[in-house]
């Protein structure tokens, strides 16, 4: 716990430097406009505090953040907190749907792989695992749109809702299906392989032989006795994916025009909207830190032998 604040502080300094050190700045974008006078550009820099020395700027940013003020977006002239909060909810929809979908399919595949003796199922999982790691989401996403949205016209090609229709859960889930499946492929692949390997190991234990002797069916004892024993290390495997899931979500959002934090960061970087860039990045880091913390807690809950001081 105690290590989190210094870590966040260090990261914020690192990111602040990465954003502010390179030559040029947001005012240059306005300077590219021929009608902007040197005087008005200088006024903009002053207004945004960009004319002050870097340590002062950082100190200003930090004290404001400590008071809950993340600044205003240069482009949208709205508080960063409001913009980022909207996008955070959208990214949460996408990542949550992805994790749920991947968990369901990975458990099904992993159990099938462990229960069946078929070489075919095993090599299917193995091959799928390598493909899942290798296909970049921006390519599989593009192909999915091309085949299922453009040629077959089965699914929407992007966005979060059908335009002109009021919000409905089915409509949202319908729009989530393709991006979640594309982003989830990697995790279905990795998790099913992990579960299959773990289950195969557990199924060789003595208590499984007892369960078999009791006459339980193969699927029943795999689910009731096998799965819970694999679940504990599996929590860590899932929990540690947070940073990669967020990176993947960024790309998927761009492919499927999903207005989440990834698309926000992309556009904010291109328009040099510094306050939004800082806000989005720090929220990314915060999500990862919280996810790691929750993983530890869940580990403690799932395994009574683990106790934290």
């Amino acid at each position, binding site marked *: 716990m105690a*290590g989190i604040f210094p870590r966040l502080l260090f990261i914020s300094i690192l990111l602040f430097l*990465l954003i502010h050190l390179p030559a040029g700045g947001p005012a240059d974008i306005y300077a590219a406009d021929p009608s902007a006078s040197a005087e008005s550009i200088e006024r903009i820099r002053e207004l945004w505090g960009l004319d002050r020395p870097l340590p002062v700027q950082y100190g200003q940013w930090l004290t404001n953040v400590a008071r809950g003020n993340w600044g205003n977006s240069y482009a949208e002239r709205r508080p960063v907190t409001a913009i980022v909060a909207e996008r955070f909810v959208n990214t949460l929809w996408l990542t949550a749907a992805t994790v749920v979908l991947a968990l369901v399919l990975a458990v099904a595949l992993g159990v099938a792989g462990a229960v069946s003796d078929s070489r075919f199922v095993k090599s299917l999982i193995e091959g799928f695992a390598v493909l899942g790691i*290798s296909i*970049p989401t921006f390519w599989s996403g593009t192909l999915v749109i*091309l085949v299922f949205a453009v040629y077959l016209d089965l699914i929407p090609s992007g966005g979060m809702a059908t335009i002109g229709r009021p919000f409905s859960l089915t409509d949202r889930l319908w729009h989530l299906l393709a991006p979640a499946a594309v982003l989830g492929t990697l995790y279905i692949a990795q998790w099913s392989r992990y579960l299959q390997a773990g289950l195969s190991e557990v199924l060789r234990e003595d208590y499984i032989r007892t369960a078999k002797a009791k006459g339980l069916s193969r699927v029943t004892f795999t689910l009731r006795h096998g799965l819970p024993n694999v679940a504990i290390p599996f929590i860590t495997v899932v929990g540690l994916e947070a940073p990669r899931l967020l*990176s993947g979500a960024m790309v998927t959002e761009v492919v499927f025009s999903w207005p989440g934090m990834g698309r926000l960061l*992309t556009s904010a970087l291109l328009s040099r909207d510094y306050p939004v860039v800082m806000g989005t990045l720090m929220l990314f*880091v915060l999500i*990862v830190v919280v996810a790691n913390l929750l993983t530890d807690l869940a580990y403690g809950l799932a395994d009574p032998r683990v106790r934290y001081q």
Partner: protein
Amino acid sequence: MLKRFLRQPQAVLSLLVLLAFALGAAFAPLLAPYPPDAVNPRDMLEPPGSEHVMGTDDIGRDVLSRLLFAGRTSLTLALGVAFFSVLLGSLLGGVAGFFGRRLDALISALVDTMLSIPALALAMVASGFIELTTGRLILILSLISWPTIARLVRGQVLSLKEQPFVEAAQAAGAQHLRILFLHVLPNTLTPVFVAGTLLVAYAILIESALSFLGFGLPPPTATWGGMLNDAQLYFREAPWLAVFPGLAITVVVASIHFGGAGLREALDPRSEAGS
């Protein structure tokens, strides 16, 4: 060891595929049917055919030629990133594991910190505001990727330094750094080499993701991710623009993974492939 590698058909096949890509990249100027940046307004969005095997893009550039030259950039970059990450990661991880205490605490904290920033976001911020060159991009991606190697090496060194041969070296009067570099680190080479192989795949993916999002090497440099990014506007009319570069990325990355798995099997004396 070579025998054990050759006994795995999918690993051998992957190696041949990688070799083909490497040769294609190395001899791109000889193999490419057209100059990669040659704009030809008369042949815009030409579908694959006898004249352009993989078609042309929106300004009439030959896709196959660009693909070959992009392979040059992507492979050089990925190898560079893997090399420097392994170098930096081994050095810092080795020092952390070997000397322990404050140094270990400091380096481990740095590793944990780096790993809690989503890599792609960090790469975007680091490359978004500067004039990007291949060298700079290698530097950026290496500075982002070393922590995984450092964590691996640190763990290895922690167990290796308790081994009798380290004690023997100490008894012989060898100095700390000599023991670390001549006795301990060479013993981590096998797992590090396998991890380094996977890092090549990872670097290809992150570089192409970066290019896809518009934060990669500036035009006219051809990269696989950049070609996919260019394809975004036209892929409905010209799907070949999106199909071929993505296929190249997938095939190379999958081959590296299969090859890496074969390598791990071949290097691990306990694995089944040896029996």
